[in-house]
């Protein structure tokens, strides 16, 4: 469904992405992990169409991004991108915002209304649905942004740190359950970045580990643990993401024992 081929991206001299190759199959949920500043958001933004690849290309459902107006039009109908810090229309009510997104993605009127009511209920926004988004707390704004992604029913969801940004525990669990449900069917392909290893183990079909602009590991959680001979995914990820810090952490913890 998503095919990234030899993607190179840089803003100035420092390359952010170096020859990324990534394939996400239809119906898969892939989690992108990596240390801060290693290009996760850039990769997601490029897949979402925010950036034009300087080298390489991206295909969504067999159509190459930005290759033609028609292809790009088709791709935009398939994909919903939720950045880590989306800007929301603060002067609109949450319900109106979701209605507009549903309209944009051509979700039927009745289905849209029903889905919005359900989502507002699940994320504890029922009482705030008709209030202006500007009056929402940070967490509530994140919730309505997540609801926007879900209401679109787009077959490809690109989510940059959907679990961050002030979601309360109930919302975190709800989102996790929803993603698991979406993953269970074959209709949704999800690529998301998250820094929370505990969640990854439960929801990911495959994990892509990005470091220094390159994908250094890409496999299922079980396979990653097996390959590295590690005890747990958490340990494997820690070793993969920042091997130096593992050693330093050990020294630090020992020094605290004294």
């Amino acid at each position, binding site marked *: 469904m998503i095919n990234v081929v030899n993607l190179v991206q840089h*803003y100035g*001299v420092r390359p952010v992405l170096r020859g990324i190759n990534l394939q996400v199959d239809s119906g898969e949920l892939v989690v992108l992990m990596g240390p801060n500043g*290693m290009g996760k958001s850039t990769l997601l933004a490029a897949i979402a169409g925010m*950036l034009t690849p300087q080298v390489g290309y991206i295909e969504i459902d067999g159509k190459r991004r930005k290759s033609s107006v028609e292809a790009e*039009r088709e791709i935009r109908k398939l994909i919903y*991108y939720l950045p880590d810090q989306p*800007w929301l*229309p603060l002067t609109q009510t949450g319900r109106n915002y979701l209605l507009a997104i549903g309209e*944009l*993605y051509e979700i039927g009127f009745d289905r849209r209304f029903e889905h919005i009511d359900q989502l507002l209920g699940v994320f504890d926004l029922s009482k705030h649905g008709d209030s202006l988004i500007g009056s929402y707390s940070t967490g509530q704004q994140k919730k309505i942004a997540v609801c926007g992604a879900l209401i679109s029913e787009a077959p490809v969801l690109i989510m940059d740190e959907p679990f961050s940004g002030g979601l309360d525990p109930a919302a975190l669990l709800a989102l996790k359950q929803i993603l698991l449900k979406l993953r269970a069917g074959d209709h949704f392909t999800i690529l998301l970045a998250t820094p929370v290893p505990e969640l990854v183990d439960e929801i990911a079909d495959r994990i892509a580990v990005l470091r220094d602009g390159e994908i250094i590991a890409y496999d299922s959680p079980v396979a990653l643990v097996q390959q590295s001979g590690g005890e747990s995914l958490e340990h494997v990820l820690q070793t993969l993401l920042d091997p130096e810090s593992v050693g330093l952490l050990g020294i630090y913890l020992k020094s605290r024992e004294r």
Partner: protein
Amino acid sequence: MIRTLSALFPRTIFFNVTIALLIVSALGIDGFARILAWRFELNPREDAIELSQLTNLSWAFVACALALFYAVHRVWSFHPLWRSDYLAWLRTTPWRGGLWLPLGPVHLVWQDAVWVAIPIIIALYAGVLNVLYVAGLFFATHAAMHVVTAYHSKSWLVAFTTAAILSATLGCLLHPLPLVISAFLAYLVAIYGIRKALKKLPYDEFPAINTIILTAQFKNERTATPDPSAQLFEGPSMAILGWPLGLLAPRKVWKVASIGKKIAIPAIFGLYVFALLFVIDEYRTMAEEPNLDFNYTRAIAVASVVILALAMATPYISFCAAPISLLGRFRIGRPIILSYDRLWISVLLSGVATWVLAGIIYSVTGSLSLAIAMAVAVGLPIPPVMLPFFETWFLTGNYRLRKRGSASFKQFKA
């Protein structure tokens, strides 16, 4: 008869308050002048000429303002395309194009003469302004409003022809009678087109002019507009959906300007430049002042063209930053990225073409007005012709989206 007369009376609070304030100001100045003349036993024609002139000018200003406001009101208040609520209501009624509009006609009727007579009488009282100018201002403003209406209702030929005739009106600024005649001619052309366009109403393809403000869209959901979201997703920003969804999501409507319009609009603009320079030249000749300096005028023309070219390139640039920062480009030895920099190159070319062409035409014809106008008419369409259609650029261009149209794109740096 009386009903129509009453229906035509402006009822817009903004118009009426503004006019009332202007009249009160003119009355104040007039009264003050009269009190001074009475108190000091002055003869306005001999002892207080400046005070008298100020009074007359203030009345002349009121006359012009009245004519202008009434001309705007006659289109603004009566043409359904200018009023979303009116248009929406018409769509719910059996009214169809060709029938008498329920709130009153868009074309001028004899009752209008009664209301237009008021500013003319005031101008006569002021005595410093030829009343033909007031009539000319009324017709020209009315026709100009219809240019916007015709353009919006896709009556391109009518819009461009009327605008072209109005440029002649500008050229006749120093000659009241030709000015009125050309303004009236512009009105006749405009109203012919408007009557034809009205027959297409209230079809859905013409949204009301004052509903193009995206943020107002949801308010219109209450009205009977058949598809309230039809304009929700127009334009590059789709601000109502926030960032970046407003830019990345599929959209229903793309506004595309045809090549014909891209050339016609600058050509009309060139006509106005010609008319303006012609009037200035004529005035300076009459006042026995030296003619305009060519180089100075050319520099102003080039600056204006570059500013307008930048304005045309703004939608392309405001949401789309260069793929590599300027500093980064020099550091990697790739200062020009043609696929993106063509935006800037088109702006630069328009300025250079205007400069060079003005010089060539001036050296051949010796006419400053003609040289500058033609150069502007040729230089100005360069960016819109060179630039891709916005849809093509937006969907396939080499750029990175800016955050909310600002220059900040730090969020992608990690």
